[in-house]
């Protein structure tokens, strides 16, 4: 923020620092319209379509959280399924005690955020690759512990109570709105976090960790905050998953497949941009729906594409779009603009 005020306060030097090349107000307006139209979907499309969209919301929320971890904080976690599972179980526990599963959504978010703290304390002792497997071990451990409690279904899981007598059409619509709300809140949270101080610290760390530390950036704290936010976000997605599936099975909610899906969607769409996971989720859903009758093939193909993209098109599909038209739907960096008679671009925008 201080950068923007300082430089814009000296217009005599002939340049301005702005968030976007164009006015971002119209992107905000478009986003609002998209959300409103999506919110009206239960009235205009079949329930089969909304069910698919709920899946898309879950994947998009997960992918955005994984992007925050890997793309911004450099934390490759392959154990994010621990939060999907915990989120689902928070909903189950609240529902067993007689409260509406929808009311359990905030409980799942807060619960997973809190659970992320001790888990971070454990895995933050290890770096990069070993951090990745440690998160995986943690996810397996948490699942094994939860399976020991027979009151919440033990090793086989149990159906989600609390929907008896509810109109199926209404349930479908509520589930859809819950999914939409979770996704919008998740994206808005990430956008606002990255625009603020946290985004600045993370960008500094990505460029040069030693320099960032010596300038007083509290790197450990920033990474912990990202891990907690990602935990809460994946927990919210897990809660929506439990509501949309109407049952909770430990092996299904704690499956590493969730991490595979969020990672592949992010990598294909473009790591390190907010737009990337959105495009990645679209690709993911199209592939999954087309190959639905071929079992695991969609994951095999997605995995191969993700490997290819990670090696040869590191900025993903959004990176390819960005190279051509150079826009940010969610600007979190700054542009340097020169106020000359013939304005020309001085610097490329900072990635992010």
């Amino acid at each position, binding site marked *: 923020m201080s950068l923007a005020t300082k430089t814009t306060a000296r217009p005599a030097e002939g340049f301005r620092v702005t968030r976007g090349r164009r006015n971002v107000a119209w992107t905000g307006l478009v986003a609002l319209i998209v959300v409103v139209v999506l919110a009206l979907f239960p009235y205009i499309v079949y329930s089969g379509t909304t069910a698919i969209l709920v899946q898309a919301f879950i994947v998009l929320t997960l992918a955005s959280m994984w992007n925050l971890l*890997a793309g911004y904080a450099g934390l490759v976690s392959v154990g994010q399924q621990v939060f999907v599972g915990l989120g689902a179980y928070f909903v189950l526990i609240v529902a067993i005690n007689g409260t509406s599963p929808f009311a359990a959504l905030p409980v799942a978010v807060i619960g997973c955020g809190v659970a992320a703290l001790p888990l971070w304390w454990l895995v933050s002792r290890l770096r*990069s690759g*070993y951090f*990745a*497997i440690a998160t995986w071990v943690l996810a*397996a451990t948490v699942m094994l512990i939860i399976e020991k409690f027979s009151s919440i279904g033990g090793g086989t899981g149990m159906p989600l109570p609390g929907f008896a007598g509810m109109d199926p059409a209404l349930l479908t619509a509520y589930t859809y709105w819950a999914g939409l709300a979770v996704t919008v809140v998740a994206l808005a949270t990430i956008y606002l976090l990255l625009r603020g101080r946290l985004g600045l610290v993370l960008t500094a760390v990505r460029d040069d960790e030693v320099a960032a530390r010596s300038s007083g950036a509290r790197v450990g704290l920033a990474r912990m905050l990202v891990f907690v936010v990602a935990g809460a976000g994946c927990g919210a997605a897990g809660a929506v998953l439990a509501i949309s599936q109407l049952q909770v099975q430990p092996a299904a909610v704690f499956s590493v497949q969730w991490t595979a899906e969020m990672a592949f969607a992010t990598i294909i769409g473009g790591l390190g941009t907010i737009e990337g996971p959105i495009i990645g989720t679209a690709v993911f859903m199209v592939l999954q729906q087309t190959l639905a009758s071929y*079992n695991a093939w969609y994951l095999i193909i997605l995995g*191969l594409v993700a490997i290819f993209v990670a*090696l040869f098109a590191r900025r993903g599909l959004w990176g390819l779009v960005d190279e051509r038209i150079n826009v940010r739907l969610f600007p979190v960096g700054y542009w340097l603009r020169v106020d000359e008679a013939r304005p020309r671009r001085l610097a490329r925008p900072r990635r992010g």
Partner: protein
Amino acid sequence: MAWVNAIIQGVLVGGLYALFACGLSLMFGVMKVVNLAHGDLAVVAGYLAIGIIAVINIPVLWSFVIVVPLMALLGYVLQRTILQGALDRSVLTTLMVTFGLSVVIENGLLQFFTANSRAIGTGLALVTGSFTLGSQIQIGYLPVVIFVVAVVVLLGLQYFLSRSKYGRLIRAVADDKEAAQLAGADYRHVFGIAAAIAFGTVALAGIAYGMYSQLSPTTGTDTILLFAFAAVVIGGLGSLWGTLLGGVVLGVAQQIGAQISISDEVLAGFIVFLAVLVLRPQGLISRGAQS
């Protein structure tokens, strides 16, 4: 007596875990690559052995002679192509690529060979037999043979890395690959050799596991990779003896857990892993010797 038996069984299976772990440890030590597909490669080796035995009908032990060099060759090729390509970009990319490989391999096996568990039938008297110690402890020959092979392989690897000319070259490249390059070593080739060794050991361990227990497409991640990693962390990063100790501690913890309740076998091992992570994050034997 049941407890003594559990400890003995735990020590023996610990050797197998150490054999799984040493390849993971070697690749991290030399190339800073954590191969998330490590366990799946062990399963691939096991399935290859099953396939070869079924198709050309050779004695079981010959499958090692064919599969281990084949996997070592695969390791060299994979390192020189995909893994080196990822390394040239960033450590993050190696994680994403190996995770992608892991998911692709696992689901590929699931697609082509179903989710059924398979064992490598040996039919050898040595494998099915056992001897008794005292009156109540019964020890199978196979776990003993596997343990001995694991210790011999670890000893050999230790000797190779610390004494041989090529081992010195690998250590030099692990220390500083640019300096080694300036001194005339082709570090990419050395990385390939290290990967070949790692893949060879994991293939050996994978076939042994297929004889000892059963392999299914998901064994690679939910068992082999996680156990190998736990063994590495418990023992201490970067020490082969630590890895052996880590494998043994993990094996004993699991067997003791199984004595308490059969469903607690895996959990007990992970709890010991977490305890070590909290109390002694550098591992039981802290960084000293090789790789």
